[in-house]
């Protein structure tokens, strides 16, 4: 593989970046260089890699991306993306740079700090092992997380002090603004919830403009002992966009993470989600809803690592595929030898609205303990003819009956989302995407 050629644009971009002050202090620069070297060494995955069997990233690898330039967007453009009315704070990151003027921290209670990652890096005198390597809470680095670390100039760090409770969500909005050349952004979000704290975070990705964008995101969630973290990720970018995201969560003793991933796709949207249940009684809910049409490919790979005993995990992923959309779902559950009394449940369902839509789904259970309960199920299909007939036989028009059933299918996942506005807007976006009559 002619690595040097394929990555030429990254090499020149990286060299230019490293000369700029945005690359940060010396230790960080060294970390970036190491990460970039690993990236060049590894290269982009191919479909020969088991983890990438059904998702060919050749369109990304074959395109010359530049580090996204600073861009300005108006408050008006932001209005449709904002959850300001509901949020305790809204942090807006445009093309990888936190925008203080578009952000608002007014309603943030004491005990919570939300700051720029750049600022965090600059003030870190002695970085910990993970930050100097750009490593996530729960996983080794990958080609994409290395690429992210090499280029991430800014991001958002949320720290919730022990026993602090933030009921209104903190919204972190990453906007990619496309331009004349394909632009790469490297968003990074780090959330640390202290002992017995509670926080709700909405992490959303949106695209503006016509140019091709590639968001290569890394999210890190650290759920402290007895902490409760409610997380929603909303991905809604342009049809030409590439979105590759890695989220890693580490849960301490009796920590609870509820995460909903809402994905509307782009050309390729891939979510790699890792959760390590690393303390007794930790519990995670990983749910997701993806809605795709056209030529979109949505790929979700989740790994739930039961490292300690008495941890429940619940996973419900649902997809609605229209047009020629494709989806991949791979749900790995690891139960370590120590993790007795694990209770893991995984469900994956997909609704195919056309004959051309397709999905590849695979559960992957690796169980090394003997006193555990692990269940998984997958159901792929079209709308249920019997249900359609039942609704029609009561006078409901076929188009409305289909609409009702699609809503019901999605509502099953969305009912777990705590922020009303997220649920309501997601339904509207779903209606738009699938061109359903508005309810």
């Amino acid at each position: 593989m002619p690595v040097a050629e394929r990555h030429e644009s990254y090499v020149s971009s990286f060299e230019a970046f490293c000369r700029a002050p945005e690359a940060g202090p010396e230790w960080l620069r060294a970390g970036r260089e190491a990460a970039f070297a690993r990236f060049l060494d590894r290269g982009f995955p191919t479909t020969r890699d088991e983890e990438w069997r059904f998702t060919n990233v050749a369109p990304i690898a074959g395109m010359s991306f530049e580090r996204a330039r600073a861009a300005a967007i108006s408050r008006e453009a932001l209005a449709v993306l904002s959850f300001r009315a509901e949020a305790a704070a809204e942090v807006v990151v445009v093309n990888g740079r936190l925008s203080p003027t578009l952000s608002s921290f007014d309603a943030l209670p004491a005990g919570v700090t939300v700051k720029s990652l750049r600022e965090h890096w600059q003030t870190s005198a002695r970085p910990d092992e993970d930050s100097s390597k750009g490593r996530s809470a729960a996983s080794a680095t990958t080609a994409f997380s290395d690429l992210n670390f090499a280029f991430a100039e800014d991001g958002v760090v949320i720290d919730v002090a022990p026993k602090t409770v933030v009921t209104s969500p903190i919204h972190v909005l990453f906007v990619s603004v496309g331009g004349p050349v394909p632009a790469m952004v490297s968003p990074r979000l780090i959330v640390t919830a202290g002992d017995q704290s509670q926080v709700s975070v909405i992490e959303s990705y949106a695209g503006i403009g016509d140019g091709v964008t590639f968001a290569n995101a890394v999210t890190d969630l650290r759920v402290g002992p007895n902490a409760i973290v409610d997380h929603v990720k909303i991905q809604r970018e342009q049809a030409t966009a590439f979105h590759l995201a890695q989220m890693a969560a580490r849960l301490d003793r009796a920590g609870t993470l509820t995460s909903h991933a809402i994905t509307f796709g782009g050309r390729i949207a891939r979510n790699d989600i890792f959760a390590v249940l690393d303390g007794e009684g930790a519990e995670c809910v990983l749910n997701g809803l993806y809605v795709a049409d056209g030529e979109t490919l949505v790929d979700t790979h989740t790994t739930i690592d039961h490292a300690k005993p008495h941890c429940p995990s619940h996973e419900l992923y649902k997809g609605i595929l229209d047009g020629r959309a494709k989806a991949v779902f791979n749900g790995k559950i690891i139960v370590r030898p120590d993790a007795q009394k694990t209770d893991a449940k995984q469900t994956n369902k997909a609704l195919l609205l056309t004959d051309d839509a397709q999905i590849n789904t695979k559960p992957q259970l690796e169980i090394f303990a003997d006193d555990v309960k692990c269940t998984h199920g997958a159901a792929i299909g079209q709308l249920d003819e019997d249900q359609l007939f039942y609704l029609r036989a009561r006078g409901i028009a076929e188009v409305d009956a289909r609409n009702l059933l699609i809503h019901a299918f999605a509502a099953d996942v969305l009912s777990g989302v705590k922020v009303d506005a997220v649920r309501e807007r997601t339904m509207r976006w779903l209606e738009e995407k699938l061109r359903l009559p508005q309810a």
Partner: protein
Amino acid sequence: MLLEVKDLRVRAEDKEILKGLSLSVETGQVHAIMGPNGSGKSTLARVLAGHPGYEVVSGSVTYDGKDLLALQPEERAREGVFMAFQYPVEIAGINNTYFLKAALNAIRKHRGEQELDAVEFMQLVRAKAKALEIDQAMLTRSVNEGFSGGEKKRNEIFQMAVLEPRLGILDETDSGLDIDALKIVAHGVNALRSPDRAIVVVTHYQRLLNYIVPDIVHVLNDGRIVRSGGKELALELEEKGYGWTDAPAAAVGSR
């Protein structure tokens, strides 16, 4: 004549099920259609409701002067045809009340009546729900989800009470019901008997007909009506079984 079925031949998956069935139902009447398993009773009910799984080979169905077979299932419902399902479908995620309101308003709109708002609808529903012992919890749950067999059947008759059809077709509504549930269902159906409405009760057993007393009883065998008579025919069937009706003897019309 509200319903006129003439020489109806129906196929499902290359098998002929109805083989020239004729039936006439007047407004105000209650007809019972009885017959052994596989005789075509449920097929008749489903074809009248417009189930897409059947192919009408020949014959005609005229309902209130219209060609019923030309109408979509939802158009039939809006014209006042209602089938209580033998196996009501569970629909997770659709609230029972929301569903019924959408159905009623679709029908009212078709009739040129004002759609009901949430308050008016709930008033209507509460009154009807009480008679069929439908409790609040059943109304707020998803359609038929987690309902017992008896609850599902009661819910069907409850829907019929709310939607007020001109032709109600009950497809083995008695199957699987214990005697208490059967009485509640029968009571609900009897309350819906009216000079403006016809009811066709499809059943395998005579038992239901002790509670819903029909005006006319038909025996369906091998895709045809082979006997028709008064309510005493049901008792005769109970006594002798269906065997003696096999011979396609004098099939007496209901006219």
